[in-house]
């Protein structure tokens, strides 16, 4: 792409990035306020971090659709820093912490400059999960009390956890109104994804909570003409003069050991959180680009320095907000910039409304965040990978809770290494080979495939070597990773390889791992246990068919199709469709196949968004081969949402001759000429006279999506007839 066309695309996509930035700012506002308050910093500190992050990272960053701002992971470290460094004086502690944030920003910048982006690979996956869970428990323990309207509960994480039952019994006696707002908010957050109304989902859940709780305040004031029954200490306070009230970071403790410890912890968590987020968000990018991690780290470091001087928290890449960006059509860093600008607008224009947000509602959002981080599902998932992984997880979790993050993660690394020794029963293999190169990669002259061979052992200790080689393979190629000379492969590596497999899949490359089957037979090799178990477990549950499944089997018989009730974790053929570009496909199940004409109907489980904005969805899809070559297009019902998208710059192809069709359908695609040629009067009449489905073409195949839920038997029948009619119509056209 030339420079000119690149800037042309930039301007063309500007409206949709502004739109995405706006939606992100709706999530960012409550989170930024909440995270700052949870760290005992002034509420504006979070906003400052988000604004500075948005601007600086948008200009200097190396990723595309990530959003930066104050991070969840840092709450615990910052809270500890602010309360301990000031020796009881929170404001003094905040000033010392600002200095620490500035220093850690410098360190972060150095990390990027020295290209240490691969560092996060040195931490075993289970230990990282354990650490994140500990952070989640920490947030949850503290904010649970605030959510109920009790701000006076103190003590360390464990004590606060123990007091949760007490608070639950007592909270109605203190500030019942505020507490009930908190409880309603948390219930709403848990049930939000169950409400399946597309208009409702245009505004992210955290914003609903904030808007709702402000609304209740106004209702009391304007309708009932009463004072809002929320005490002032449970409302947000913003200083009148924002500019003149800028705090000055205090560097007095520069050589203090505690202070330096804080700097190290902040940097460590910032690096880990950012890298994990960038890696996850890259998989949601519609344009399938690869982020420049080191450049992004430099930008984040710079942003943290600026934010620290202005009194803000430090800036990291955040997963939930980034995934909201991806889902709303953000395509480049300008979305990050606009999210910052909208935040500035909010604070300037809606300062009064922001001061009406009850802390209990914000605490509910944080409790939800904490719960998502520490969700028991994580432990169950890890236990399925292997009991030893669960042990590592728990060791890290408990150590972090009782000591500090740095000690916790160190314990996690150590326990992982000890488990490896125990599993392999040989110190020799690890000690002798850890510093030696063990990866060979070359492009086979005959086939043009990339061949990668790994020797000795491959674990979190030396995964970076393998990664360095794998990163050099373009994802559209065919890569083969051979482990037959390798005696030990750990869970971190297997998970990392799975990530590679997915990014190769996205770009239509092929990523194969070979040579692991022998290990599984010989020893308790991680591969067999780790890769196949979760799905086997699921299959085990599906022994007896449900009524719907029996009906489907009958339908298959009636049509003389084949019915496969099995769960397929890697459904084929759906990768090329735009619909799945910013979604993660989990598995397909209940497949009906017609072999000859290549029809297949299946239920699909997929998810949208990540972390607290994650929504698991299920739907029934019909996939079939088109008898003629088609342009790539998406046809959907014209409604409020698509109208909004249109306004944000997504194009809709309209036909002057067919006003009814143009009004009811939203048709989009890049090749306007081809699409207009395809949609002749017959086809348009066909669509007008049939039920409206979401239909997509990827050139060769057509995908029909039923409702936003699983379709019933009757609906499936309608879908099949619809598809058959469409095929015969397309055939006749030819």
């Amino acid at each position: 792409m030339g420079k000119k066309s690149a800037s042309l695309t930039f301007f063309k996509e500007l409206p949709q990035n502004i739109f995405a930035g706006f939606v992100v700012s709706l999530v960012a506002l409550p989170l930024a306020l909440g995270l700052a308050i949870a760290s005992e910093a002034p509420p504006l500190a979070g906003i400052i971090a988000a604004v500075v992050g948005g601007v600086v990272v948008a200009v200097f960053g190396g990723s595309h659709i990530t959003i930066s701002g104050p991070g969840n992971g840092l709450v615990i470290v910052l809270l500890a820093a602010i309360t301990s460094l000031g020796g009881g004086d929170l404001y003094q502690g905040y000033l010392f912490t600002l200095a620490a944030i500035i220093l850690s920003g410098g360190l972060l910048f150095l990390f990027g400059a020295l290209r240490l982006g691969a560092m996060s690979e040195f931490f075993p996956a289970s230990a990282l999960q354990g650490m994140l869970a500990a952070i989640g428990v920490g947030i949850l323990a503290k904010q649970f009390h605030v959510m109920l309207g009790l701000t006076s509960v103190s003590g360390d994480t464990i004590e606060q956890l123990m007091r949760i039952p007490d608070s639950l019994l007592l909270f109605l006696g203190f500030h019942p109104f505020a507490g009930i707002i908190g409880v309603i908010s948390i219930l709403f957050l848990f049930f939000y994804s169950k409400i399946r109304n597309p208009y409702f989902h245009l505004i992210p859940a955290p914003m609903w909570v904030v808007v709702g709780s402000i609304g209740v305040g106004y209702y009391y004031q304007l309708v009932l003409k009463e004072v809002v029954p929320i005490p002032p200490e449970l409302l947000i306070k913003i200083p009148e003069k924002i500019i003149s009230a800028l705090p000055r970071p205090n560097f007095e403790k520069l050589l203090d050991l505690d202070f330096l410890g804080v700097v190290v912890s902040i940097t460590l968590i910032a690096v880990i959180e950012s890298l994990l987020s960038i890696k996850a968000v890259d998989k949601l990018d519609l344009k399938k680009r690869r982020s420049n991690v080191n450049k992004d780290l430099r930008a984040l470091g710079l942003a943290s320095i600026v934010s620290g001087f202005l009194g803000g928290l430090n800036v990291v890449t955040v997963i939930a907000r980034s995934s909201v960006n991806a889902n709303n059509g953000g395509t480049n860093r300008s979305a990050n910039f606009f999210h910052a600008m909208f935040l500035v607008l909010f604070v300037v224009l809606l300062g009064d409304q922001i001061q009406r947000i009850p802390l209990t509602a914000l605490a509910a959002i944080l409790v939800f965040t904490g719960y998502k981080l520490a969700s028991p599902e994580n432990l169950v998932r890890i236990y399925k990978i292997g009991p030893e992984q669960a042990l590592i997880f728990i060791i890290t979790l408990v150590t972090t809770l009782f000591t500090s993050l740095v000690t916790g993660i160190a314990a996690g690394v150590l326990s992982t290494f000890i488990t490896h020794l125990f599993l392999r029963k040989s110190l020799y293999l690890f000690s002798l080979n850890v510093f030696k190169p063990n990866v060979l990669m070359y492009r086979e002259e005959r086939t043009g495939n990339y061949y990668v061979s790994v020797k000795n052992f491959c674990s979190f200790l030396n995964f970076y070597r393998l990664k360095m080689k794998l990163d050099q393979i373009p994802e559209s190629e065919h890569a083969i990773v051979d482990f037959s000379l390798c005696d030990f492969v750990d869970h971190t590596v297997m998970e990392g390889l799975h990530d590679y497999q997915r990014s190769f899949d996205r770009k239509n490359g092929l990523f194969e791992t070979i040579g692991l089957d022998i290990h599984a037979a010989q020893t308790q090799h991680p591969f067999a246990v780790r890769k196949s178990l979760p799905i086997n477990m699921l299959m085990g549950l599906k022994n007896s068919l449900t009524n719907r499944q029996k009906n489907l089997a009958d339908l298959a018989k009636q049509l003389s199709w084949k019915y496969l009730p099995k769960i397929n974790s890697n459904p084929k053929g759906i990768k090329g469709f735009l619909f799945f570009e910013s979604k993660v496909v989990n598995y397909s199940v209940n497949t009906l196949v017609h072999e000859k004409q290549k029809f297949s109907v299946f239920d699909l489980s997929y998810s949208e968004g990540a972390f607290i904005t994650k929504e698991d969805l299920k739907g029934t899809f019909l996939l079939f081969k088109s008898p003629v070559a088609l342009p790539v297009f998406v046809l959907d019902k014209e409604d409020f949402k698509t109208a909004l998208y249109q306004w944000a710059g997504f194009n809709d192809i309209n036909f002057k001759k067919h006003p009814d069709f143009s009004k009811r359908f939203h048709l989009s695609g890049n090749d306007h000429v081809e699409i207009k040629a395809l949609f002749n009067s017959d086809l348009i009449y066909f669509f007008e006279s049939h039920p409206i489905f979401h239909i997509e073409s990827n050139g060769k195949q057509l995908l029909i999506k039923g409702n936003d839920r699983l379709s019933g038997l009757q609906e499936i029948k309608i879908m099949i007839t619809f598809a058959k009619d469409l095929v015969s119509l397309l055939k006749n056209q030819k």
Partner: protein
Amino acid sequence: MANCCEEFGVDLLLLGALKRENVVKYYLGSIARKLTREAPCSVLLMLKPSIERIPCKHIVVNGFDSPQTQETVEAAFSVGCALSSEKITLVEEISESRVAVSVDDDRSLRKATLRKEKIDREEKIRVTDIIKKIPLAKTKRLKWETQSIFGSRGYSIGHYARVVRADLLIMNAQEKPRFYHRFFPQDLEHILAELPTDVLIIQSKKNG
């Protein structure tokens, strides 16, 4: 023994060797390794000497840019003819530093891939030139191909020989071995630490 070789003007020294050494031996150096390093002549290290002759089908030989390589490749073809091998693979190990583009994102990846392809072509021309200088009688009897690998020198070829199950690996002798090379393994040291197969080290006359 090393002295003997020098006195008698030995051309080839045959040694049996351990496939792998443990930590202590690695740093002290086993006899075979010591001899390999100090012998003034060519050395053949045998892993599994057997009375029954195992056919030597596939020979891997280094082809990196060094004045010794010409002689080594010539020797390889002579050995290959003598043992009636089927195939010789010339491996050019190319240091990653020659690519000089670090892969960060899509753009740098594209750039690096293009550069690699260019270097790859250059290397191929260089190696083919070497082979052109060898009498046709020898090169015609054997199938030969080239393979370029981007990776640390000395290590990649050993690993490659193991992956393709080569029967003989032919290498240049090292220029000047020093003690610190054992801590920062270079070229031959990688292979000596972990013999992938039988290894023949050709001592160049220029070096001797």
